[in-house]
């Protein structure tokens, strides 16, 4: 029978289908960070349970780590916030006690969990990958079945190497045609979330396909899969092709020699069969996608940069209308206002959505030779990992940012969720390359606008949103 990619990944990891409708799925790779794991390790200790297979886990602290050179200089001991320090120390201690490989705070391979997974080759095509974090779907970009889990499940995976799961439905999101110049993978996923809504993918595994996805780099596909959760889906995946195989080759944990050859043959089968049936197919025309900007407090509240803040009065669904009205108040915006008129205070380029080398390059290209607008009090660039940072510095991108008045930071989640010292002040507007614009997400009372790295960079220079396609035109 013809199968979807998701069907294939599911079937090849099915340990046991139980009579009550649940299934045991085998987990190939488990990634651990400091926020969602302490209670899981504590649970293991309390029940005196041994982990099932230690050498499949990999850990790194990311959410709480400071991003300034000064605060990072003395490692964990230097973290000023005691509560954050305790959490990072607890991760170190647990990894030490259980014998789990950890990229500790100042290891050059440390970084955001979803950046280091594919970067290190720990997450490979065809694997099942979990992590106590909803953006784990990022790994779907290499053709892995990856999803976020809660802390009880972290403990469950540590103890059994399995997850109790129910099969999801299959959705195909097909992005046809070609993207226009200046339009990026971030705009694609924001447009998708805008179209299907934040609950549109609920209960589904989404496969992203179509010519636009085929033409996209693996890092671009990561940006798309990363935000599958913002469309309500627990997993996003892209079929394996030559681009995937070229990407994974030569990484730290990628197989070599005969195993590599064998793996490649296996991976080449990781795509949906032509005759495979999807429960739902959604199509978008790639050529009509414009650079996107979110105006509200949910990732589905997006409009093209040329657009205006929408009017709730034009919406009939009362729950939706109320949500829009509330968002307008929270965001301090008025219906009909041009997106380019929104006054910005800060710019954040980073997060597991957009902190890889291609993102750094895209942002650097825009700000090169320009100066940050005076009205922007802080524009920060936070690479996703130590390796991304090193690569960017080798290319001189750090200088480009610094010369333009942007801050170049140490790797971590940073202002994506503001668990460390990087946050928005009450009422501040921020052009952010992260994935969530929820109330208070980037700081109490902070107002987030989700955009691509190039758009964020252009906003840092202009002081307001500007269509990066025009901006590039001006600069050249």
């Amino acid at each position, binding site marked *: 029978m013809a199968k979807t990619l998701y069907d294939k990944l599911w079937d090849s990891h099915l340990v046991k289908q139980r009579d009550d409708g649940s299934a045991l799925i085998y987990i190939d790779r488990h990634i651990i960070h400091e*926020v969602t794991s302490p209670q899981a390790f504590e649970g293991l200790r309390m029940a005196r349970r041994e982990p099932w297979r230690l050498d499949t886990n990999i850990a790194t602290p990311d959410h709480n780590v400071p991003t300034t050179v000064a605060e990072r200089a003395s490692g964990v001991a230097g973290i000023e916030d005691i509560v954050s320090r305790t*959490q990072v120390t607890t991760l170190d201690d647990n990894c030490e006690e259980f014998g789990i490989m950890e990229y500790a705070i100042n290891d050059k391979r440390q970084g955001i969990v979803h950046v280091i997974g594919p970067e290190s080759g720990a997450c490979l095509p065809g694997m099942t990958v979990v992590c106590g974090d*909803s953006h784990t779907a990022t790994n779907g970009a290499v053709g892995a079945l990856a999803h976020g889990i809660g802390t009880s499940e972290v403990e*469950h995976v540590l103890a059994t190497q399995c997850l*109790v799961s129910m099969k999801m439905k299959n959705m195909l999101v097909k992005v046809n045609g070609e993207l226009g110049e200046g339009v990026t993978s971030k705009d694609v996923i924001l447009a998708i979330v805008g179209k299907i809504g934040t*609950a549109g993918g609920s209960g589904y595994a989404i496969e992203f396909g179509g010519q636009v996805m085929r033409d996209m780099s693996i890092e671009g596909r990561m940006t798309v899969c990363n935000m599958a959760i913002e469309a309500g889906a627990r997993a996003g995946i892209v079929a394996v092709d030559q681009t995937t195989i070229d990407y994974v080759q030569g990484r730290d944990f990628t197989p070599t020699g005969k*195993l590599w050859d064998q793996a490649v043959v296996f991976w080449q089968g990781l795509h949906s069969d032509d005759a495979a049936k999807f429960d739902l197919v959604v199509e978008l025309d790639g050529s009509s996608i414009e650079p996107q900007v979110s105006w509200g407090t949910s990732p589905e509240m997006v409009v093209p940069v040329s657009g205006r803040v929408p009017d709730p009065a034009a919406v009939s669904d009362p729950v939706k209308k109320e949500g829009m009205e509330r968002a307008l108040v929270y965001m301090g915006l008025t219906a009909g206002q041009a997106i380019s008129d929104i006054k910005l205070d800060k710019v954040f380029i980073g997060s597991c959505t957009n902190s890889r080398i291609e993102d750094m390059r895209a942002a650097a290209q825009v700000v090169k030779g320009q100066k940050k607008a005076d009205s922007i009090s802080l524009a920060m660039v936070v690479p996703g990992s130590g390796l991304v940072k090193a690569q960017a510095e080798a290319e001189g991108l750090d200088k480009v940012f610094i010369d333009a008045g942007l801050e170049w930071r140490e790797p971590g989640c940073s202002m994506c969720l503001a*668990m460390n010292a990087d946050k928005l002040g009450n009422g501040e507007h921020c052009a952010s390359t992260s994935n969530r614009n929820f109330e208070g997400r980037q700081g109490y009372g902070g107002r987030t606008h989700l955009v691509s790295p190039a758009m964020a960079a252009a906003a840092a220079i202009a002081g307001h949103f500007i269509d990066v396609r025009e901006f590039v035109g001006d600069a050249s």
Partner: protein
Amino acid sequence: MKSFTTHSGIAAPMDRANVDTDLIIPKQFLKSIKRTGFGKNLFDAMRYLDEGQPDQSCDGRPLNKDFPLNMKRYHGASVLLTRGNFGCGSSREHAPWALDDYGFRCVIAPSFADIFYNNCFKNGLLPIVLDSTKVDQLFKEMYAAPGYELAIDLNSSSVTTPSGDTFNFEVDEFRRHCLLEGLDDIDLTLQHSNDIRDFELRHAAAAPWVFDAIQGN
């Protein structure tokens, strides 16, 4: 795991759609390494007028008087009534921990975000999906009658209103069973240890590179 069979309690509103996990428990409280004590910071940004800090006592913080949980009529509420896509956003289990720690046993909504829904069951918190017209009716009745209580019975999968209307809801059989019995997921899975070992052998034959160890610090 905590079990859930029947429960009756006062219903309180969270009358908006897409309530995300940052609203349920803001991130500054995720720095705890414990599972308990999150109840006082449930819905922190809406409940208090100032910005809450971890490890801070909430006694004496300025309350938002307009927030339902701060109103006398919803005092002691244990059933949360809300709108679609509740719990969207992060996978943080701190969200159900906070609801549970506050005293909620049950959340009723037209739909839930997947990971949150799943996390509830692990903590003896019952998420109930009812269609939006029924949820609407419950909201209206609750607003009209202070002290409005709902009775939930997981054996019969039903919600009963004070006037005796009964609505049935669906729950996956395995989740229902685990919750009713308070079964521990890990124990259940470990009953299949042999299946897991057999699978590992088959899997290693088909994809041996998957078993390359993560090591080499």
